[in-house]
């Protein structure tokens, strides 16, 4: 099952890259720091090994091109948002960690201050968009079908069709998992990674990439901490070890604990 998924995802990357194969222009990448170098090295490992020797070079080339295209689009998105004074957040995390519940709570609390747009990514349904819309935010649902993360192209397609002057705040709820979203930045100011006590205290050390790439880590469902006996101190230490700059906040979207604190860490 897992093998099948990996092969499948490898193909998805190749297919996705074909959409951009005609692009010929290059652009200068900002000199990466050590952390960014490490991230790009990890990225190169996946999926390339599926390609036979005959196509290996072109697969590597196309994959790099697509990554550049995504980064280029993400910078364009960020510029468009900044030009319209929109604060933006990409929220990633496993299925059921509490992303939708946290966004709903925040939207509720800041709705007098900000006109909010929420883009929800899920493979199918508009369940999450409907839940958030009940808290008076405008929503757009993206159903990725078989893709396990949103990418900058999806987001750009939405914002280029919107009058951005109508918004002050953008949330993007990414497709639920702790793996694929690390392949695509979306051009938001900040990325928030959400995990919860129900996922066990090893979840952070087992998914280092997203913690290295995020600005804020939320450990949610602390109302269940006693019942589950989850070692939250270990989770906090793991996040800090992976990314000393990351802000960690423990929350309960159910009881509302520390949601205000999260809002203030987000600078809202």
């Amino acid at each position, binding site marked *: 099952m897992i093998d099948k998924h990996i092969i499948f995802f490898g193909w998805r990357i190749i*297919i996705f890259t074909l959409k951009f194969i005609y692009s010929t222009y290059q652009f200068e990448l900002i000199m990466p720091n050590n952390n960014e170098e490490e991230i790009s090295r990890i990225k190169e490992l996946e999926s390339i090994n599926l390609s036979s020797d005959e196509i290996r070079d072109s697969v590597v080339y196309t994959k790099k091109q697509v990554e550049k295209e995504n980064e280029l689009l993400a910078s364009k998105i960020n510029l468009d948002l900044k030009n319209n004074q929109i604060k933006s957040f990409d929220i990633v995390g496993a299925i059921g960690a509490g992303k939708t519940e946290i966004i709903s709570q925040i939207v509720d609390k800041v709705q007098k201050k900000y006109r909010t747009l929420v883009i929800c990514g899920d493979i199918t349904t508009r369940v999450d968009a409907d839940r958030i819309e009940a808290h008076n935010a405008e929503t*757009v649902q*993206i*159903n990725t079908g*078989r*893709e396990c993360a949103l990418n900058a192209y999806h987001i750009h*397609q*939405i914002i280029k069709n919107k009058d951005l002057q109508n918004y002050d705040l953008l949330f993007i709820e990414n497709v639920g998992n702790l793996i694929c979203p690390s392949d695509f930045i979306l051009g938001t100011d900040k990325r928030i990674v959400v995990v919860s006590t129900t996922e066990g205290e090893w979840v952070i050390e087992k998914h280092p990439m997203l913690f290295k790439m995020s600005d804020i880590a939320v450990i949610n469902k602390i109302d269940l901490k006693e019942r589950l006996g989850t070692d939250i101190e270990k989770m906090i230490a793991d996040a800090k070890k992976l990314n000393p700059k990351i802000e960690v906040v423990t929350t309960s979207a159910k009881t509302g604990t520390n949601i205000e604190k999260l809002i203030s860490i987000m600078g809202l």
Partner: protein
Amino acid sequence: MKEELKAIERILVDIKSISKEELNNMLKSLFTKISNHIDNYIGDYPTFIEPVYLEGNVEIGDDVLLGPNVYIGANVKIGDYVELSNTIIFDDVILGNNLKLENCIIAPNSHLNFENFKCNSTILSGKADSEKNLTKLSF
């Protein structure tokens, strides 16, 4: 939504009766009225960016991206790797593989029986095995 679609369909018959600007405005106002209706397609989990409205008996190939602002009429067959945004497809249309259409209108009964074609702000009509044989009117 249906009224706006009917108006656009009527215009296709006598396209010179309207300016490019008027047509663009009609499309824009249609897009604000498209509601999301995507549960009824035949195919294998395409990507949808809402709003997308699908009429009955729409067949969708692999790795297709539809939306935002897409209306697809009844009995339409969409090939693999197709990408449509800000586009309306009337009834009984066939789209080949790897077509990327943005801000386009495809007239009823059109057959785009070819692959690898990109198009912007154009009305397309006819039954064609090659892109060259299609009737195109840009706006």
